[in-house]
């Protein structure tokens, strides 16, 4: 299994070796481009699976089989969905702001690509190894808020505007507990680099040392990616589809895929920070352990979605500012005390 673990490194070294000077700028550039292409392929494959998985989990929860006509037991459903979306007419509302309306979906799909590029999928498999990984992740995912507001404003429709405003309120409120809950992990490992954080979990994953932070992170991340029970942004029954109402064909497809991509990115981040990344017992290679852990977190998110109803906007704000934020701050104080006592006792 060690050979499978090291397989990506071997391939990377082989490709570098093709160049005359293995450390030249051209070699670095090629490796980066290959890394980004790999991330894009990973996202597309993941989304392909997730769309069907969501509908199947929804079916299982209500004693139905879910999609079961296309492909073996229905797993090719996404291909049919993608073809259907691409064949629809592209409608441009009459008074829409052309530039704003057109840019929003295009950049929305780039956000999960940018955030997944820094996450270590396995031993040495990081497309871009940044020293400020954690800060970069949250900075980029905040752009999503602005894009939803652009979509809501540019559509020139009352439902979209209401949806856009709700999106801004929700996402701003939940980013703060999200970031604070990560600070405990950073205090323990003394580094923002994601590879260092995974390596520091060799002995014990951080979920056992920081259970409160894990709970806060999970809830705040469900709110960040607009999934039920926090999906007021696209509340079907009240404001039709929120900021996405006036989009059709591939523009809407990009929003839809971008939402699932965001879900994968946030689950991958939770795995890296709290569950130990790619590490696990030796009978499976590291990159398979990573995807298993991501799968567990995504299943948990889907399970929550199909069980609970949606909460109201003022209750949402109460919950974020009066409940999650104090818990996150409490976690930081406790971690500080814990580190101080550890140093006193161990003296290191």
């Amino acid at each position, binding site marked *: 299994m060690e050979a499978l673990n090291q397989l990506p490194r071997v391939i990377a070294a082989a490709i570098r070796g093709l160049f005359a000077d293995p450390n030249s700028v051209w070699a670095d550039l090629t490796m980066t481009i290959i890394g980004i292409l790999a991330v894009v392929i990973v996202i597309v494959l993941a989304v392909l699976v997730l769309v069907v998985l969501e509908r199947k989990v*929804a079916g299982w*929860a*209500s*004693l*139905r089989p879910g999609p079961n006509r296309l492909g073996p037991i229905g797993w090719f459903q996404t291909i049919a969905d993608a073809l259907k979306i691409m064949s629809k007419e592209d409608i441009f509302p009459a008074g829409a702001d052309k530039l704003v309306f057109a840019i929003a979906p295009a950049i929305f799909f780039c956000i999960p690509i940018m955030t997944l590029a820094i996450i270590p999928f396995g031993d040495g498999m990081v497309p871009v190894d940044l020293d400020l990984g954690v800060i970069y992740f949250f900075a980029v995912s905040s752009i999503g808020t602005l894009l939803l507001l652009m979509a809501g404003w540019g559509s020139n429709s*009352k*439902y979209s505007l*209401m949806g856009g405003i709700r999106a801004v309120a929700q996402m701003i409120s939940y980013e703060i507990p999200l970031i604070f809950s990560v600070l405990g992990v950073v205090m323990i490992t003394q580094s923002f680099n994601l590879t260092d954080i995974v390596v520091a979990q060799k002995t014990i994953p951080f979920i056992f040392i920081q259970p409160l932070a894990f709970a806060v992170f999970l809830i705040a991340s469900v709110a960040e990616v607009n999934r*039920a*029970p926090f*999906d*007021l942004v696209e*509340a*079907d*029954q*009240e*404001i*039709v589809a929120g900021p996405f109402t006036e989009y059709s064909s591939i523009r809407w497809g990009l929003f839809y895929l971008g939402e699932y991509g965001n879900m994968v990115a946030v689950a991958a981040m939770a795995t890296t920070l709290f569950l130990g990344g790619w590490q696990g017992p030796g009978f499976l290679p590291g990159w398979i352990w990573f995807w298993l852990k991501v799968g567990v977190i995504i299943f948990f998110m889907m399970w929550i979605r*199909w*069980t*609970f*109803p*949606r*909460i*109201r*906007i003022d*209750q949402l704000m109460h919950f974020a500012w009066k409940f999650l934020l104090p818990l996150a701050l409490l976690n930081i104080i406790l971690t500080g005390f814990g580190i101080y006592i550890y140093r006193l006792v161990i003296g290191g």
Partner: protein
Amino acid sequence: MGEASTEELIVNLGPQHPSMHGVFRMVVHLDGEIVTKVEPKMGYLHRGIEKLAESRTYQQFIPYTDRLDYLASPCNNLAYVQTVEKLMELEIPERAEYLRVIFAELARIASHMVFISSAALDIAGWTTWGYPFRDRERILDLFEMSTGSRMTTNSMRIGGVQNDVPPEFWPALQSFLEDLPDMLEEYYGIYLGNEIAMGRMKHIGILSPETIKDLSLTGPVIRASGFDYDVRKAEPYGIYDRFDFKVPVLNGCDTYDRNMIRLYEIEESGKIIRQAMENIPDGPVMAKVPKLIKVPAGEVYHRVENPKGELGFYIVSDGTQKPVRIRIRTGTFTNLQSLNKVLIGNTVQDLIVIFASFDAVLGEVDK
């Protein structure tokens, strides 16, 4: 600098809307997210049933009454048939009376189950939608076995019931009644006992007793505001005075109580069906009436307790085979007149939830 001026937003919650309750249209005036005025516009499902009645005989009109409140069609049939029998002063065999009670209470349970699933859908409880519908399938199978059709049952005739039930009806009904408490536990566990649902539905949509008295509302909606009035107890029709059941009354006046009271009503209907099953006698199911019914001249009004309110039929007849005028007084049409009083001051999200708790079926509203 003066203050920034804000405009009122006028939104059309139009006949096509993902919040399912039929084709109902409301023009809502919003100030931010708070509702200031509501204009309901009804009539998108008008089919002219009262006018059609003038050119049909009394027997031929029974299938049309199915389609008023299509989720509880035996109850509508019962109201119409009892009105005509009141004018004709007809006596009905005992077995037919008991069968009518069983069908009407089963229809009440089915209608309340649809209410629970559609109210849950309005606050995005997608899984909750499936469970009452799966249980309602058993009731629809019972209807199919005995009357021939699942929803528009056409089960009652002037003088009795359409036909006797087959022998496999009774074991199926027995097993359904035994599973009923577990079903109610499940609905409570996944939807009404949920903290999120409670937080959404408590203390909003207050329907005060003064509004109820002014606008003469009826149905479970008023029993959730402390009014103890049920036509089955106030003016018993058929053989309802022989059954021992309670009328549930809650005092909260809010949306949560309007949801909970229907759970209690399902339980009480189960009790009535059990008592009817034990006491049903043998005998014929249809009285001796001529094939083409002629009703003596006169006017009559009769009302029953529908799952949604009070359903009343007023028939004017001049002695021939076709009525001169039939006027239908439905519960939902009157209940929806109170929308303006109940919805003002709530947000858009609450508007959907409160409207769902009124349990509007547009077939009844628009006739």
